[in-house]
């Protein structure tokens, strides 16, 4: 039994003592101690792969600890499944939303604990309850919309509402800001403060230190699976926190001197893409990227970025327009020929497009390069050379892996991403399309990826950078365009623009009329 704090202080909402979790070959958590005071926002910070997620899965009953005690409001508990955790008033908002797109908000929220009888779901009662919760916490959620139609911020609020609907008093938010634009982040923090004011407790997982400092009441730092410090945001700076997290200073996205040349590499003219329903998802987009230039595209997700990238890569056929790579018209070339012509591609979703999780690292290295040296020799895959080159990537790009014969799924997200970057930088590309290259990766990997992009840029690589991280966009771009509803609506100078200005341009709050 953990000792109760002395005096009249209430028992901690959640207390983890000596939690240890081992996986075959790895210790994910060792001797973790966290005390969360009720009615506070408690941040858990640490690099990806530091063991935050495992810890939260343990707290939410998705995994069981090998050692240690979980106590909720002073009473020790054992969670065999998420249902037990929900029963104890703990709810989780997953980083990857657990929502069914083809169901309405209402259906998503009530699923599993539906009001009404077995033969008739009481839609009216559910609607009322959802509106009540939505109003009292300022979540602004319409129960009758299809989740498919919602933006990222709204989906997140639906997730929060889902947990509240189940009566949770302690909310775990796993990297909630990873997918949001600054205004949405502010809004989310507003929601969190309201939740806190209502007496709810929030466990907030993040590696974005500024955000943590602005919203948290207490901060626990976790490094290599164990808690290394518990600090108050008043006594600590972002720099100090970063040092606690990684032992080094926080990397900054910045470009040094300009390397932009006047040799155009990618010239896009009048590119138009129509969706399945005939609507223009990309409308008359034109731009040029020169050798040694990074063009950043800012925009709220779903405004045509994915379509732009797919059209450039030859995954989606454009309805009109012309794409030229180094003066050569590649509009009609298939994806493989484009890649052979020197296009590298860091996809937005590494699990769907970047790696085959159930294949080994070296097999993943071959993918996309299956017709080129050193991966292949004639019609055959050159396994020896491919493996040797994978070793090179693992070494040069600091991919942390036991060996190159493990499945990609064994790697953490940041390491998978470094492998992808390494692969795409192989074979000397002339153009790199980087879609959210540092999404969901830790500070160390982020710095490494930025560094690789900077180095390649100095060697006259042209880069198209799409990111939701505005600091990254501003810091890493030589020029910036804003995409809104499939059109490039504004150009900004990254040297002068602020994230706030960019944010409002992205939402069409300025310059639309």
């Amino acid at each position, binding site marked *: 039994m953990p000792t109760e704090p002395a005096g009249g202080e209430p028992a901690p909402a959640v207390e983890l003592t000596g939690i240890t979790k081992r996986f075959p070959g790895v210790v994910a958590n060792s001797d973790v101690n966290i005390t969360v005071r009720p009615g506070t926002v408690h941040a858990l910070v640490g690099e990806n792969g530091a063991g935050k997620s495992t810890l939260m899965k343990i707290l939410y009953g*998705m995994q069981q600890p090998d050692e240690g005690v979980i106590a909720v409001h002073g009473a020790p508990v054992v969670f065999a*499944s*998420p*249902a037990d955790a*929900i029963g104890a008033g703990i709810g*989780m908002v*997953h980083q*990857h939303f*657990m*929502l*069914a*797109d*083809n*169901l309405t908000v209402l*259906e*998503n929220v*009530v*699923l*599993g*604990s*539906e009001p*009404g009888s*077995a*033969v*008739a*779901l009481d*839609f009216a009662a559910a609607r009322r309850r959802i509106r009540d919760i939505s109003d009292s916490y300022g979540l*602004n959620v319409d129960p009758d919309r299809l989740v498919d*139609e*919602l*933006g*990222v*911020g*709204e989906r997140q609020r639906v997730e929060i509402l*889902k947990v509240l609907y189940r009566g949770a008093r302690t909310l775990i938010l796993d990297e909630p800001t990873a997918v949001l*634009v600054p*205004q*949405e982040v*502010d*809004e989310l923090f*507003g929601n969190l403060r309201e939740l806190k004011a209502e007496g709810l407790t929030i466990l907030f997982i993040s590696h974005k230190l500024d955000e943590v400092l602005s919203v948290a009441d207490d901060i626990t730092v976790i490094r290599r699976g164990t808690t290394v410090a518990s600090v108050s945001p008043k006594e600590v700076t972002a720099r100090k926190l970063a040092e606690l997290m990684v032992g080094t200073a926080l990397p900054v996205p910045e470009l040094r001197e300009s390397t932009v040349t006047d040799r155009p590499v990618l010239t896009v003219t009048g590119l138009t893409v*129509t969706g*399945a*329903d*005939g*609507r223009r998802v990309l409308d008359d987009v034109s731009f040029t990227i020169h050798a040694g230039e990074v063009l950043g595209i800012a925009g*709220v*997700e*779903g*405004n045509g970025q994915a379509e732009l990238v797919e059209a450039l890569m030859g995954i989606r056929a454009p*309805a009109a327009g012309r794409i030229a790579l180094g003066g050569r018209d590649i509009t009609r070339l298939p994806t493989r020929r484009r890649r052979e012509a020197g296009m590298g591609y860091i996809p937005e979703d590494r699990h769907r497009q970047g790696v085959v999780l159930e294949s080994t690292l070296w097999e993943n290295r071959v993918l996309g390069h299956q017709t080129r040296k050193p991966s292949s020799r004639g019609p055959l895959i050159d396994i020896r050379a491919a493996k040797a080159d994978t070793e090179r990537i693992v070494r040069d790009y600091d991919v942390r892996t036991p060996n190159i014969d493990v499945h990609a799924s064994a790697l953490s997200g940041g390491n998978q991403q470094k492998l992808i970057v390494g692969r795409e930088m192989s074979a000397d590309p002339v153009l790199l399309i980087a879609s959210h290259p540092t999404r969901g990766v830790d500070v160390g990997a982020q710095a490494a990826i930025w560094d690789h992009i900077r180095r390649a840029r100095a060697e006259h690589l042209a880069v198209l950078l799409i990111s939701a991280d505005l600091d990254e966009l501003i810091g890493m771009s030589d020029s910036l365009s804003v995409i*809104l*509803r499939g059109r490039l609506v504004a150009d900004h100078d990254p040297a002068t623009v602020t994230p706030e200005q960019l*944010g*409002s341009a*992205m*939402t*069409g*709050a300025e310059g639309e009329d």
Partner: protein
Amino acid sequence: MTAGLSVRAGSTPPARGKRKLPALAWVGAIAAVLLVLSAVRVFAGATDLTSSGTVQAALTAAVPLAMAALAGMWAERAGVINIGLEGMMVLGTFGAGFAGYQWGPWAGVVFGLLLGAIGGLLHAVATVTFGVDHIISGVAINLLAPGLALFLSKLYFSDAPGGGQKQSPRIDDAQKITIPGLSDVLGAVEDKRWFFVSDVAGMLRGLVTQVSLLTVLAALLIAGSVWLLWHTPFGLRLRSCGEAPVAAESLGVNVYKYKYLAVTASGAFAGLGGAFLAVSSGQFRDGQTSGRGFIGLAAMIFGNWRPGGLAAGASLFGYTDAMALRGSAAVHALLLLLGIALVVVAVLQLRSGHHVLSSVAGFLGVLFGFWYFSSDAVPAELVGAAPYVVTLLVLGLASQRLRPPKFIGAPYLRGQGK
């Protein structure tokens, strides 16, 4: 707060195409279809196009298809592809034959349902518990079921009075109902051969005359499925298993249980479809289903995985089936109808910017029109193929805005959520 509001406005993808047509548009569309039908009927002199007899035959043909489609929908809404519908229907036909000749049509229906459910259960065990690829398991059932049915038929029907190695003794048909006054009045109007009015009367008469109780039961089952799947907690959970099983599991839904229930129910519906087929044709015969399970799947896809849509799809295929039964002249008139329909599709697709699809449809439409005007009859060999050709065309051209359940066909293992 203004910034927040504009974020929401900006992050919302622009509204997609109209989700629902207003009621008036539906009435207009149906009236337009009827008008074209009447016009073709008058022009081609093919009374069968809109006669009450055709509608009756179409209804009889549509019911097994609708049941197969409904079966497919139940399984696929829970995320399991059920290509084994055909095999489960075969089991249903045998069950109906076995029980039907001994204890009457309704016992046949119950037995068909049970045998189908066993087929469904088998599919569920393979796909849900053992993670077998859904297609492979379905094909296995399609291979297994006819063999089993034939074996059992030899075993039980060879020595039965009126039975044979490949067919059961006769089964009495289920009761049929007619709405007395209405049917006669509509009949009188139909006989006048007035443009449009008689056609509508004929079609309505087909719907109220000599309707088998099995058809009524099928309609009730479709309506019941709407209620069960879209208005009860059970249905919501079942559908969530096909859309986002990981999310469902995280909310305490027992995904395996719902998949089992859905696939078993799917088998039961398919068996029911087979039973309807056997009962309405008076006996079990080997090979009786002749691909109806697959056409049912096609009807389900055409219906966008929705009960109303699949009923429409089944009616369409049932109608062409009925035309094929009516013979060469009717199918010949059908050519013209198809030509017109394809041209309409071409125009609609052109308007939404799908040029390739539009040209293909237009080309085929003109081809069918040309075929109609340059010939007097359709070769007998092709008459029987009409329903399949229509199935192909409809699926090829209408599958633009379909929205299958998101997690369909994917293997699901408990605890795979991250």
